[in-house]
């Protein structure tokens, strides 16, 4: 985590800040969701508490914390209490692996009579060179919080809901993994920062062996893989149990699915995990298909660095990183809004329609996408 105290402290604070960003995004997103769904349903949402109703979620948090706390009598108490905590872990670990901006170069400086050397602080908690494999690995652990919640509740409806939810989760993990193979064939790397770097130039592709560069269009993945992007988005909807795939949570069908016996802040921790997964899904979409933190030709690291050329090295680097972070967050917020928009527009799928869609429609389409991509790349890149 770093060689000396300053670096370790900054890295630790950075990881904690990213985690807290995920947690703090939940009240904001829930406010957006409630106001947006209200406007779509031709009514007002929460607009009494605080300006525009923004502190409604704070009031709700106080309400949840002071609710009565109990555990079912003959359930497995440890699993019952552990499942909401386990729900937070995969989303946090995945979010910290995704670069939200370019690294910050800090030149050496003097402080407290000691020379702190030149550092490079990456805008992520840790940088693996197997980036996407790590994110898939921790996302696949999300099925355990569902199963343990259902098991610890000692309620056969909760158990049945948990099994259905985890069956849905694992079915759509296949489509998610396979739709990413298409974009990886193009970029030939697993590491997120290399993928962002590859997308921060002009559109340049091979055409029967020759390279063609189009000057003013960015090299985004969506131009190469539109079908893959749609498949990834749909699979992410199912992974996060969001409508139209949220039958395991839907009330009235199975009482309330795997969180039947939960109340108060423990149930909210499941929702923090769900919104965290939404955040990871939006970040993955932006990184793979929409250029990450750069928009060529206006907002690449070089052009933004040129704006701040008057300031010193460290300050220019910090300002560049934060400007590009704002660009990335704008794109992520667009996709989060898309999640909310789809939720309140589409009706929900029945469970057998959902499983048929996952196995019989999305998996063949993802396979077809992979095969077509591979064949086209082979034809275009081979020097005939």
């Amino acid at each position: 985590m770093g060689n000396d105290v300053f670096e370790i402290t900054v890295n630790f604070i950075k990881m904690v800040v990213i985690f807290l960003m995920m947690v703090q995004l939940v009240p904001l997103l829930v406010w957006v969701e409630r106001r947006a769904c209200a406007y779509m349903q031709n009514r007002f949402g929460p607009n009494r508490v605080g300006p525009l109703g923004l502190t409604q979620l704070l009031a709700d948090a106080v309400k949840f914390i002071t609710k009565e706390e109990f555990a079912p009598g003959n359930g497995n108490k440890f699993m019952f209490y552990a499942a909401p905590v386990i729900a937070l872990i995969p989303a946090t670990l995945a979010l910290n692996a995704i670069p939200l901006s370019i690294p910050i170069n800090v030149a050496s400086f003097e402080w407290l009579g000691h020379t702190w050397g030149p550092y490079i602080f990456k805008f992520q908690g840790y940088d693996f060179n197997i980036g996407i494999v790590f994110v898939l690995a921790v996302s696949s652990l999300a099925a355990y919080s569902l199963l343990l919640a259902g098991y610890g509740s000692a309620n056969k409806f909760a158990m049945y809901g948990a099994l259905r939810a985890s069956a849905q989760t694992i079915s759509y993990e296949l489509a998610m993994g396979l739709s990413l193979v298409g974009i990886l064939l193009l970029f030939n790397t697993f590491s997120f920062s290399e993928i962002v770097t590859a997308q921060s130039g002009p559109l340049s592709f091979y055409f029967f062996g020759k390279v063609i560069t189009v000057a003013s269009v960015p090299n985004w993945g969506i131009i190469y893989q539109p079908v893959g992007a749609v498949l990834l988005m749909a699979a992410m909807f199912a992974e996060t149990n969001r409508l139209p795939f949220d039958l395991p949570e839907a009330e009235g069908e199975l009482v309330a699915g795997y969180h039947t016996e939960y109340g108060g802040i423990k149930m909210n921790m499941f929702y923090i995990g769900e919104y965290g997964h939404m955040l990871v899904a939006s970040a993955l979409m932006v990184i793979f298909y929409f250029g990450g933190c750069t928009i060529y030709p206006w907002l690449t690291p070089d052009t933004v660095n040129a704006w701040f050329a008057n300031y010193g090295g460290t300050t220019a680097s910090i300002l560049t990183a934060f400007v590009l972070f704002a660009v990335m967050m704008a794109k992520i917020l667009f996709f989060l809004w898309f999640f909310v928009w789809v939720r309140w527009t589409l009706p929900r799928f029945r469970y057998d329609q959902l499983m048929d869609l996952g196995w019989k429609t999305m998996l063949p389409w993802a396979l077809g996408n992979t095969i077509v991509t591979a064949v086209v790349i082979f034809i275009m890149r081979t020097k005939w």
Partner: protein
Amino acid sequence: MSQLVPVFVLSIFVVVFGIIIEIVANICSTAGKKTSTKLESYECGLPSDQSGPTRIPIKFYLTAILFILFDIEIIFMYPWALTYGDFISSGLGAYILGSMGFFLLVFIFGLFWEVKSKALEWE
């Protein structure tokens, strides 16, 4: 190795955060008496009939096993995607496409057979 330490520290932090939230909720909860009704499992208010162990269909088991198999096949495509450009630029493009094509053929045949034999029919 130096990359695993942040992962470990972060997961410990998240677990501690969750535990602290649960402890705070436990302290601040307006606890009533634990009557026996509260401790029963919730089934829309009707008393549960407790009819022996729950019978759950075997489809879940089939879904999980087929997921494992197809997941392993997808994992094999990841190194292929990583080195596809290298193989093509060194002239072995047809070879790598052909070998992975055979593997994909087996995968597609497996998926096709599994769909056709109605192994994953949900009601």
